[in-house]
């Protein structure tokens, strides 16, 4: 599974990164977490407001910091 945290370094993007790391650790899924900070890459994902969370190149959450439970439920359907 490929998880992307989309956003160029705003405080909320860092919060989201923490939440995602925690969710991955808790659920034990095998996932590669990457940060997408380049604006061109951000636009390829069609994200308008950051922070956004994309799983396997599909944007799941945009413009807010989710809770750990929410991310977990996205990781383990």
């Amino acid at each position, binding site marked *: 599974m490929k998880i992307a945290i989309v*956003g*160029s*370094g*705003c405080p*909320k*993007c860092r919060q989201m990164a923490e939440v995602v790391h925690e969710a991955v650790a808790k659920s034990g899924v095998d996932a590669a977490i990457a940060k997408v900070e380049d*604006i*061109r890459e*951000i*636009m*390829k*994902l*069609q*994200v*308008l*407001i*950051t922070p956004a969370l994309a799983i396997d190149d599909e*944007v*799941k*959450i*945009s*413009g*807010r*910091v989710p*809770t750990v439970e*929410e991310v977990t439920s996205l990781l383990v359907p």
Partner: protein
Amino acid sequence: MTWWLVYQGLSPFAKWVTYSLFSLSPGTRLTSALEFFLYEAPKVLMLLTLVVFVVGVFRSFFTPERARGFLAGKREFAGNGMAALFGTVTPFCSCSAVPLFIGFVTAGVPLGVTFSFLISAPMVNEVALVLLYGLFGWKIAAIYLGMGLAIAMISGWAIGRMGMERYVEEWVFANAVAESGVIPEEQGMPWVVRFHLGLDAVRDIVGKVWPYLLAGIAVGAGIHGYVPENFLASVMGADAWWSVPLAVLLGIPLYSNAAGIIPIVQALLGKGAALGTALAFMMSVIGLSLPEMVILRKVLKPRLIITFAGVVGTGILIVGCLFNLVM
């Protein structure tokens, strides 16, 4: 309920602390400043908390994707108006200005309409609106709302008319991807998540803003207690024609959020500054900021940024002067 009772009790409480607890006599500068601070600080903080929560929940119904879908291909004048309205309710922070700008422009939202959105988003600010309502009443709040929307609409329209498209960095258009992704998630968001967003907003905004707010109220209290009545009338009153341009120019490099600037505005008004001048100062501080321009430099060439600042500044200037003339 509890909120309302506490809110009503604030004024007697501030008087009681100042005059009974500290047994200070009324009428001196210090007591006047102190009473102002003790009353305003908790009052404004309470108002702010309530409003930020309500707006946080309300905003979860609006997404930029929806605004974009609605604005794409809209004609100029009506489009500018809609964009200005959407800009006020769509959740948006300046770190998203760049992806938002590209997403709008490449999806066929006209440049001027996009600017209307970008101008109104910071300038017509819910925090400012409610603070103005709380401190001055609904008339001034309505004037601020009307002024802000008008400036966003007309400035965006003017920028659109100037045909500045070639001053957008080329790669923005070269990179255009066919529009598709509307994220369906937000439509069916459960209320729990919406309330959560409201609480998040409170923690985020109130948590960040309160020191500025207290500092602003403290400065306001100082002006309230120590600057003589009508002292500012000669400098910032309606008669001094240069007061509005000066207020706008001063406001551009100053960057504060609405919450910090409004208590200062209140104190200025109380000491004889003209309404148009005070509002122009406030809008220039919150609507035109250097950090945002630096961020936008990634997608706009300097000439367009200068035009943007110039047009918005002129808009604030005209509205400020008009107010001083009419009132």
